């Protein structure tokens, strides 16, 4: 019976004769591919930044970067767009997974038949895109890239606000390794750096723990790596491809980390202090610009003499930036190295007062002015003459110099820039309560985001959209309170910054013991005699000296750099200017080479 059954069980299959087949009648019926299907590429040209990571990951070398003339090149963006060769592509989607912007994706379309194989090479446009959520696309979570950064360890806000010790604890080696490993080496960051540091190269060296090599890379265009590695305004990070969708690589801290690992730059950077050629350059101001210039000129044996008005070098780096951000040790290490290259320095000598500028111009082959902005701008409200109304620049300088500054128990800081943050946090460390008043919104504050957050963490009260209208004096002429109004933002049309307009209806008053004004600084050009000042050319607002590509002013042999030339107001800008000027002197412009 068993065998009989076995012969007839297959007959069971005949039941399918009456069933509807499960065939999909392609092409009359279309079967939608899965949402994640990896089909033909699409690329959003606007979002794409042309970083070329897709081309680098492609195991088939199917992607080439093609320059497209119609695309404008911006900072952090190139006009290269990926061109895909489907005669090579294997549709793995790894290019999508390394696309930092998420512009590249694989659509669900896959039909492409042609008699000509050259049809299969093209630059993916956007128009084939079937919309969000279809096709193979990468989010920050699914991307191969790690959009989360290694958080820089900081001291606890409650603890750190009590003293002037550095807030940042620095990366551990593992952290630095992981953070540097994130770098894809695309090099778009370089455009953002005013001095065009060799960022991918040094990050590569840091990854391999070759700190000496990294320092060597730094000094190619920045002689203050550790200072920059701590307090730089890090424009490079804004250009980092990771910043498009996540946290950029902390290029700044990586640099600081590597610089800190090398105790003595002299081991790596060989500059002979006794090598002196017959050229002399005077540098006014031992700030970042002055020091940079001194280093690069010394590297080529030029004799350099720096004139500094205060008893210490470093300029604004010492007096503008509080010690909890930039430690004494760091400052000393960098300046000592630069001075060890054979640059002479004369402290406490103010040009214009102690020595006339004319003398220098006569005596030296070239003179470089890197004086920076020293004078604070007053707010222009009633009661500004009260005791206890300070300029942030003066306040910070005095604190840095160790002078006793009396601010009482509550300080109101007016302004929203980095200086305001520094002033408020310094005031906090002096034992006062700090309040920041700023007339625009939180997002409009020019200070860096992390600065704002750090200040907030430490307990600084930040009042955006607040405009002081009057400073009230008590009977001793001391500050008693500040009267202020709230503002509202008025749209100024497309492309313009909204303008704060005071709401006059309600006037508030806040008690305080000091008011620190941090709404900007102006240069002090008193060192220029009138005849020289006439020959110089200034910008429209009369603040900045116009120089040419080599940092030279209209007066031959007179170079300028730093805050008095650029409007960046940061260290790395000064360094860039100084390098320009150094190059100018080297190229033989001005009187340096008659």
């Amino acid at each position, binding site marked *: 019976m068993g065998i009989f059954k076995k012969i007839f069980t297959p007959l069971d299959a005949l039941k399918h004769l009456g069933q509807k*087949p*499960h*065939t*999909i*009648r*392609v*092409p009359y019926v279309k*079967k939608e*591919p899965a949402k994640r299907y990896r089909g*033909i590429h699409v690329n959003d040209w606007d979002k794409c930044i042309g970083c070329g990571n897709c081309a680098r990951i492609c*195991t*088939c*070398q*199917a992607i080439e970067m093609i320059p497209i003339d119609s695309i404008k090149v911006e900072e952090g963006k190139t006009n290269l767009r990926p061109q895909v*060769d*489907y*005669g*090579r*592509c*294997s*549709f793995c989607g790894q290019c999508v997974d390394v696309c930092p912007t998420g512009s590249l994706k694989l659509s669900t379309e*896959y*039909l*492409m*038949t*042609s*008699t*000509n*194989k050259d049809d*299969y090479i093209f630059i993916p446009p956007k128009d084939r895109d079937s919309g969000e959520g279809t096709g193979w696309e990468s989010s920050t979570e699914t991307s191969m890239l790690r959009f989360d950064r290694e958080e820089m360890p900081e001291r606890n806000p409650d603890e750190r606000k009590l003293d002037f010790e550095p807030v940042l604890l620095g990366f551990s080696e593992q952290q630095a390794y992981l953070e540097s490993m994130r770098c894809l080496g695309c090099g778009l960051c370089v455009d953002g750096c005013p001095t065009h540091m060799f960022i991918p190269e040094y990050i590569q060296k840091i990854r391999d723990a070759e700190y000496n090599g990294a320092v060597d890379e730094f000094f190619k265009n920045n002689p203050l790596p550790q200072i920059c590695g701590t307090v730089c305004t890090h424009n490079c990070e804004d250009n980092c491809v990771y910043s498009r969708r996540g946290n950029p690589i902390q290029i700044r801290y990586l640099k600081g980390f590597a610089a800190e690992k090398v105790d003595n730059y002299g081991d790596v950077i060989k500059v002979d202090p006794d090598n002196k050629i017959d050229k002399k350059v005077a540098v006014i101001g031992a700030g970042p610009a002055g020091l940079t210039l001194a280093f690069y000129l010394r590297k080529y044996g030029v004799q350099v003499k720096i004139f500094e008005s205060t008893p210490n070098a470093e300029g604004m780096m010492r007096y503008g930036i509080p010690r909890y951000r930039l430690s004494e040790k760091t400052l000393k290490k960098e300046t000592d190295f630069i001075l060890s290259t054979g640059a002479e320095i004369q402290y406490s000598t103010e040009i214009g007062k102690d020595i006339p500028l004319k003398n220098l111009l006569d005596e030296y082959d070239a003179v470089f002015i890197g004086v920076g902005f020293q004078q604070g701008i007053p707010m222009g409200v009633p009661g500004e003459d009260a005791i206890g109304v300070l300029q942030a620049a003066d306040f910070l300088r005095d604190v840095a110099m160790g002078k006793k500054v009396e601010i009482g128990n509550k300080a109101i800081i007016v302004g929203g820039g980095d200086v305001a943050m520094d002033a408020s946090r310094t005031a906090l460390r002096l034992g006062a309560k700090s309040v920041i008043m700023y007339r625009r919104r939180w997002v409009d504050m020019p200070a860096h985001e992390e600065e704002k957050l750090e200040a907030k963490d430490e307990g600084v009260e930040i009042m955006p959209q607040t405009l002081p209208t009057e400073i009230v004096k008590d009977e001793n002429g001391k500050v008693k309170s500040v009267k202020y109004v709230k503002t509202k933002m008025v749209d100024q049309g497309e492309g313009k910054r909204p303008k704060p307009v005071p709401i006059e209806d309600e006037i508030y008053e806040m008690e305080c013991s000091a008011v620190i004004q941090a709404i900007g600084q102006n240069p002090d050009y008193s060192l220029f005699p009138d005849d020289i000042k006439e020959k110089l050319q200034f910008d429209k607002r009369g603040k900045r000296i116009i120089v040419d590509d080599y940092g030279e002013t209209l007066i031959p042999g007179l170079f300028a750099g730093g805050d008095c030339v650029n409007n960046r107001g940061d260290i790395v800008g000064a360094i860039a200017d100084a390098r320009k000027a150094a190059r100018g002197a080297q190229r033989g412009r001005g009187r340096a080479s008659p």
Partner: protein
Amino acid sequence: MGLFKFSRSRSLWMMHFCTGCGAIEMPPTMTSRYDMERFGIIPMATPRQSDLLLVTGYLTVKTLKRVVRSYEQMAEPKYVIAFGSCTMRGGMYWDSYNTVKELDLYIPVDIYINGCMPRPEAIIDAFIKLRDMIDKGEANAWKNYRDNLDWYKQNQAKVFDINKWSAKI
């Protein structure tokens, strides 16, 4: 003649020769889910009986010899469909020492299908395209092969020792 053309385009017997990994999507195309027999396309066991050669992906030198030989055995008119990236410019194996990169140097190709692997839908799409081309009289790669035989043989000889090879057959 029109009737012959019509029947030619609707009765494509393809050679059952799985040359590369593209062969993995052929069974689904041939079987119940996509069922290409609807278009009169069925696999044939021998090149003599086939009209259509599917080069399903990369060809190693060793396979190329057999493919060329099989192709030459096919009765004219005959058609070639090339699957996926590997047949166009090497695909994934662009730097392999043992696979040929550009198929059309060695045998003429009527249609290329995009994909790695092409989906069954794409394969059917190509079949329909080919059908239309035959109807219009455009699928003439086989004539091309006959006319430019020397060129093709030259290219083939570059890859394998043609004298040694023909001595074998």
